[in-house]
C-alpha cells in the first residue's frame, strides 16, 4: 500500500447533464429581473427616517435602498490601512462612498419589506437576508437564483428578532471584507408613534422585542400571549367572540437600553493579497464545462485574523493581547433606521432593562462572558419559548462568568438588569475554528450607574 500504488482510484464525479448548474455556480451572469409575486411595500421605516434624519430622503415610497459595492480604506489601530468592501444607502448622503458595518435595517413584523439594490463597482453581488426566509430570488444566493445587477428584494418579516444581511456572492471574500449590516425585526407598531414627545416614540427608547419571560418576572412590562397559538389566538386577525385578536405586544418585553455587539475579525494578508473582488475566481471551461475549467490555487482557505472589532469599533491590540474597546460609542440615527441612542459598550442606569444583541460575524469563533447574570431570550431571530413553533424550548439564565460560545453567523439576544452599580467588562475571546486556539480577548465595557 502506498501513495504511488493505491489499491483504488476514486474518480471525480461527472457534471454531464448538469453543465448549466455547474457553470452557473461558478459565475452566474449578472441579472436584473423584475420581482416576482410583487406585493405593494408597506414598510413605515424609510418615511420616518426621511422625516427625522437631517438630509435623509425616501426616494421610493415604503422602500429602502442599498448600493454596493464601494471600497473603503480604513486605518487600523497600528497605522496599517486595510481595504473594506462596503454598502451605501443612496438615501443617506453621509454613507456615500460606503460605510462599515452597513447601516442597521429595522423593519416591523408583518409589513412588506422592499429593498432596492443597485450593484456598481466590481460586479456582481447579492443581498442575502440571513435568518429571514423568503423565496429563492429574494434569498439572494446567486447560484440558486441570480446575482445582480439591480433588483428589488421583497420579504415579509414574520418573526421579531435579530438578523443580518450580507452579500452572498463569493461570500468567503465579500463578507470577510465587510459587505454586511445588522437587521432588527420589531413589533408591528414599533414605528407607529411618530411624536417625539409621547411614550413609545419610534425614534427612541424604550422599545420592545419578542420573549417568553414567564419564568423571569424581574423584567417589568412583559406581555404574555396565547399559550397555544402565540401572538394570535385562534380568533385570527381580528379576533372572534371570546377569542383574543392579534396582539402586537403579545410575547414581547420592553427594554430601556439596547446594545449591538457584532464581533468581527480581519486577516490583513487576505486583505492585501486578494483585494480584487474577483480574486481566485475560477472560470468555467470555454470548450467543455466540467472538463477544462481553469482553477486558481487560492489562499482563501487559510484564514489568520490579526484585527478584531465590535460593531466596527476596533479592539486596538495585537494578536494574543487582551484589550478593551472605547467605552462610549453610540450608533448614529442615520445608520440605525432613525433610532437615536443604540449603544455598543453598555452605559445604563440601575434597574434599567438592557437588551444586548450579539452576532458572530468573525470567521473564527467567539466566547462571550458577561460580568453579570443575563437571560438568553432568543437565538437566531427566534424568541425562545414563544408558541407555537418555539413551544419546545425556553429562555434560560446564564450566571455571571459563564462562557457562551458562538460560531460564525450565530446570534443570541440577552436581557440584563442590575439593581446595583456595575463597572466592568464583558470579555469576548476570539478562538480559531481550526484548533480552538485563543487568538485575542476583546473587552466591552459595561457600566451601570
Amino acid at each position, binding site marked *: *500500500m502506498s*501513495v504511488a500504488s493505491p*489499491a*483504488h482510484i*476514486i474518480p*471525480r*464525479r*461527472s457534471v*454531464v*447533464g448538469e*453543465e*448549466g*448548474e455547474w457553470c452557473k*455556480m461558478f459565475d452566474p451572469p449578472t441579472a436584473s*429581473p*423584475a420581482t*416576482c*409575486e410583487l*406585493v405593494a411595500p408597506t414598510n413605515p421605516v424609510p418615511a420616518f427616517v426621511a422625516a427625522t434624519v437631517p438630509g435623509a430622503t425616501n426616494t421610493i415610497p415604503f422602500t429602502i435602498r442599498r448600493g454596493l459595492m464601494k471600497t473603503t480604506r480604513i486605518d487600523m489601530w497600528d497605522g496599517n490601512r486595510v481595504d473594506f468592501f462596503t454598502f451605501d444607502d443612496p438615501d443617506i448622503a453621509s454613507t456615500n462612498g460606503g460605510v462599515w458595518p452597513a447601516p442597521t435595517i429595522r423593519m416591523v*413584523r*408583518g409589513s*412588506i419589506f422592499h429593498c432596492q439594490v443597485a450593484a456598481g463597482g466590481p460586479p456582481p453581488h447579492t443581498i442575502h437576508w440571513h*435568518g429571514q*426566509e423568503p*423565496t429563492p430570488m429574494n434569498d439572494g444566493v446567486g*447560484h440558486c437564483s441570480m446575482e445582480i445587477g439591480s433588483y428589488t428584494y421583497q420579504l415579509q*418579516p414574520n418573526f421579531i428578532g435579530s438578523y443580518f444581511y450580507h452579500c452572498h*456572492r*463569493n*461570500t*468567503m471574500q465579500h463578507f470577510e471584507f465587510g459587505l454586511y449590516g445588522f437587521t432588527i425585526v420589531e413589533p408591528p407598531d414599533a414605528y407607529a408613534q411618530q411624536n417625539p414627545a409621547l411614550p413609545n416614540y419610534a425614534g427612541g427608547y424604550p422599545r420592545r422585542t419578542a420573549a417568553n419571560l414567564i419564568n423571569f418576572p424581574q423584567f417589568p412590562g412583559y406581555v404574555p400571549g396565547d399559550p397555544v397559538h*402565540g401572538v394570535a389566538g385562534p380568533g385570527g*386577525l381580528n379576533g372572534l367572540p371570546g377569542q383574543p385578536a392579534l396582539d402586537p405586544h403579545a410575547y414581547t418585553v420592553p427594554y430601556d437600553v439596547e446594545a449591538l455587539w457584532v464581533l468581527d475579525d480581519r486577516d490583513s494578508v487576505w486583505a492585501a493579497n486578494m483585494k480584487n473582488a474577483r480574486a481566485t*475566481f475560477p472560470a468555467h471551461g*470555454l*470548450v467543455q*464545462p*466540467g*472538463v*477544462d475549467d481553469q*482553477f486558481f*490555487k487560492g*489562499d482563501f*482557505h*487559510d484564514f489568520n485574523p490579526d484585527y478584531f472589532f465590535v460593531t466596527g469599533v476596533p479592539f486596538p491590540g495585537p494578536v494574543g493581547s487582551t484589550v478593551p474597546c472605547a467605552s462610549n460609542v453610540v450608533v448614529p440615527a442615520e445608520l440605525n433606521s432613525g433610532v437615536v441612542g443604540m449603544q455598543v459598550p453598555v452605559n445604563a442606569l440601575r434597574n434599567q432593562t438592557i437588551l444586548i444583541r450579539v452576532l458572530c460575524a468573525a*470567521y473564527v*469563533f467567539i466566547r462571550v462572558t458577561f460580568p453579570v447574570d443575563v437571560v438568553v431570550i432568543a437565538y*437566531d*431571530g*427566534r424568541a425562545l419559548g414563544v408558541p*407555537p*413553533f418555539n413551544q*419546545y424550548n425556553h429562555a434560560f439564565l446564564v450566571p455571571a462568568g459563564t462562557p457562551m460560545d458562538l*460560531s*460564525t*453567523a*450565530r446570534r443570541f439576544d440577552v436581557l440584563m438588569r442590575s439593581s446595583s452599580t456595575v463597572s466592568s467588562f464583558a470579555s469576548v475571546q476570539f478562538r480559531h*475554528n*481550526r484548533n*480552538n486556539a485563543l487568538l485575542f480577548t476583546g473587552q466591552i465595557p459595561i457600566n451601570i450607574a
Partner: protein
Amino acid sequence: MERRDFLKYSAGSLAALVVGSEMPWLMESNAYAAFQTPTLNFTITDAMKEMVTHNPFNDARCYFWIYKSNTPNLLPECPGPTIFTTEGDIVTITLTNNLDEPHSLYIPGIFSSGPIAPLATKTFRFRALRAGTYLYYDNLNAPVNRVMGLHGCMIVMPRATHPGHKFTPYAAPSPAVQKLFDDFGTSAHFPGLSWEQGDPATDTPAFRQYVWLCHQASPILFAEVGNFTAGLDYPAAQFANLFNNDPYVDTFNTGIMNRKPHFFTISGQSGHFAHNNPFLCPNNRVGEPVIIRVLNAGLQAHSMHIHANHVFTTSINGVVQENPLWVDTMTLYPLDVWDWTVPYIRPPDIPNIRGIGKADTPLTSITNPGIPGSVPHPVWPPTEELNTFLPPVGTLSGGLTGIDISCQLSPMCYPMHDHSEHSQGAQGGNYNCGLISGINFTGDRNTAGGVTTFPNVPTVHGPDGTGPAAG
C-alpha cells in the same frame, strides 16, 4: 430505478447498508441507494481520490485510507458506507486490514474492534444498543487514522414508539423532542406528514433522513502519512499540529500548498457535487419534515448555516435536547454528532395574511409590468418565480460555442453551507468547490386541492457518473 442501477449510485457513504431488521421504507425509496445485507464485510485499504477541482489541467488529488464494503461490493469512497441498523439488533462485521499498520473500527458506546494486524481478518459481533447517530472510525493512533479517511456514519433506528406517541429518532426522547415529533402532521402549525409517515402516491418515503458527514482533507499531509515508513505510525501530535498550524504560504502566487487542509467535503463531496446531489440535498415538500444527521470526522470546526427553514437541534452528541433550540446556524466541532430536525414549513417570510410565521392565506400579488403575463395571484405557491429561468434561456457558457446554462427556479433551491467561509475556498470561490449542500422545496402538501409538486423535481439522477472530469 432498476435495482441493477444501484451500483453506480452507491459509492461509499452515499450508499446505505441495512443490516439486521428490514427497513422497507428505506429499501423502497429512490432517495436511498440501499442494500439489505446479513453481515458487514469491510476491507481497510487505501485510495487516491480525484477531488472536486481535478481535471486534465489541474491536478487535485488526495490520498485516503478507507473502509470499503466487499459484500455487497460497493465502489470505494471516503467516507465509508452509511450503516443502518435497528436498536437491539446484533450486527456481525468482518474486517480485513490491507494496510501496513494496525487498524480498527470503533463506535463510541457500542463497539471497539481493537487493533487488527496488517493482512489479518477478524469477525466481530456487537449489539446496536441505543437509537441515534454515530460516527464509526479507526480510533488508533488518534487522530491520524480517523482523519486519513477511516470513518463513516452509523444510524441506529428505534425499534418501536413509546405507547401513545409517534416515532422520534431516539430511544429516550426528551419531553420537548417527543412533543415536536408528535406535533408533526397533527398540530395546526405543522400540517402535513409525521416524520414516520410516507406517502407512496407522492413518492415520499417515511422516516426521511440525510447524512452530512463533514471532513477536511490535506493532500500534502495525507501523502506524507501514506509514504511514512511501512509498519510505523506517523507521529500523531505532529500530524495534528501540521494539519492545523502549518505556516501560511502564499498559495495564490506560488502554487505551493502547505499541510493544512485544502479540500472540505460533505460525505466526500464538495460544491456542486454535494449541493445538487439528491442523496445529500433533501428534496421535499412543505409538510414533509426530515432529519439531517450532521457529523464531523475532521480536526476543524464548522458553522453550519441553513436557509429557508430554521431547524431544531434535537440531539447533540447523544444527548436528546431538553431545550431544543430553533436555529439557522449551529457549531460543529471536531467529532461532533448532532441531529437537525427540519420542519419543512413554508419559508415563513413569504407574504401572508397575518405575518406571524404560520402557513396563512398568502397575500395576493399586484400586476408587475416587468413580467410578461403577470396578473394578480396568490404569492404562494410562487408561480411567477417557479416559471422564471435565470439566466434567460439561450444564455451560453463560453460564448457562441458553449452550452445553455439557463436554470429554471424550480424546485426552490436553497443552500446549506459552512459560514466559517474559508472552507468554501478550495481552489475557487462562490461555493462551487466548498463545504456546501442544500435544501430544496419540491412542492406543498397543504395547498388547496391537495398536494402540489413543482416542476423538475429530481428523480434520483446524477451527478453520479464518474470518470476523468466529465467522463
